[in-house]
């Protein structure tokens, strides 16, 4: 399910089937790191779109969680996001990010952090871009399915 009116209305009806939330976590850097941050956003968005296509009926893609990477408490909001999503009925919460600092903070977020190093997609042709994202996403598909199976057994 995408973050739009139609899908979220369907989510509210079919809550018992949709137990997974995906949060794109992206830095909002308006200084010299701007293009790096924008590249990360572009990459993460494409990846998340692909996963949403695969698993439309079981996961909801939330609006991106943007943070200011140079603040001292840059990671402090994430735990609150996880908390609220879990209260809303999501059993599994995944944070998708290209910022490797999140790996050390995984425990305090209370969610599963999936770190994917971002690839500058800039001038790449669409078909190349698509197959690159697809390859990355296939590995993540396995991680997600594994999580689902672990929670059943």
């Amino acid at each position, binding site marked *: 399910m995408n973050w739009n009116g139609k899908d979220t209305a369907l989510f509210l009806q079919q809550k018992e089937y949709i137990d997974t939330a995906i949060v794109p976590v992206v830095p909002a850097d308006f200084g010299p790191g701007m293009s790096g941050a924008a590249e990360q956003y572009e990459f993460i968005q494409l990846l998340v779109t692909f996963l949403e296509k695969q698993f439309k009926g*079981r996961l909801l893609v939330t609006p991106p969680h943007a943070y200011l990477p140079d603040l001292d408490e840059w990671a402090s909001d994430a735990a609150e996001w996880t908390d609220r999503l879990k209260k809303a009925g999501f059993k599994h919460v995944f944070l998708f990010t290209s910022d490797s600092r999140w790996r050390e903070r995984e425990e305090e977020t209370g969610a599963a952090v999936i770190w994917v190093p971002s690839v500058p997609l800039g001038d790449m042709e669409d078909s190349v871009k698509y197959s690159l994202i697809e390859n990355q996403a296939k590995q993540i598909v396995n991680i997600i399915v594994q999580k689902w199976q672990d929670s059943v057994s």
Partner: protein
Amino acid sequence: MSKKQPVSRRQFLNYTLTGVGGFMAAGMLMPMVRFAVDPVLKGEAAGDFHPTQQKVSELTDTPVRVDFSYEQTDAWYTSEVTHTAWVYKNNKGDIVALSPVCKHLGCTVSWEGNDHKDKFFCPCHNGLYEKNGKNVPGTPPLKPLDVYPTAEKDGLLQLGKPEANNV
């Protein structure tokens, strides 16, 4: 001298004026006619089928994944969308192209996924479909998988807009 002339001045002027006038009338009428019949011509040219790279001769009775993309306009945003179909030949030799979109909540199904022999499997809530797209009772989906109309052009498969399956 004037007796030898087969065309009189009056006739000459008549001929030239009719000729030039004819061209002018044609110049005005032809675009009008073209505009009038344009919707008819356009209807034939556009068609509803999208080409794929799949050779029809290479299809077997095992479903294969066929990806195809085309441009789609969403409000003012034009983008290239990619769609997938599972395509095989049934025992009558007809081409069957099924949409991979699960009729439960819209996940993507795969052929023999997760070791389900001769079935389409949906990983989200363990939905199952027979090879012809019919949903297996007792699993979450309530309707069969949609089916694409198929066409062939230059040996390559073309797919239309998915429609409800009556199996």
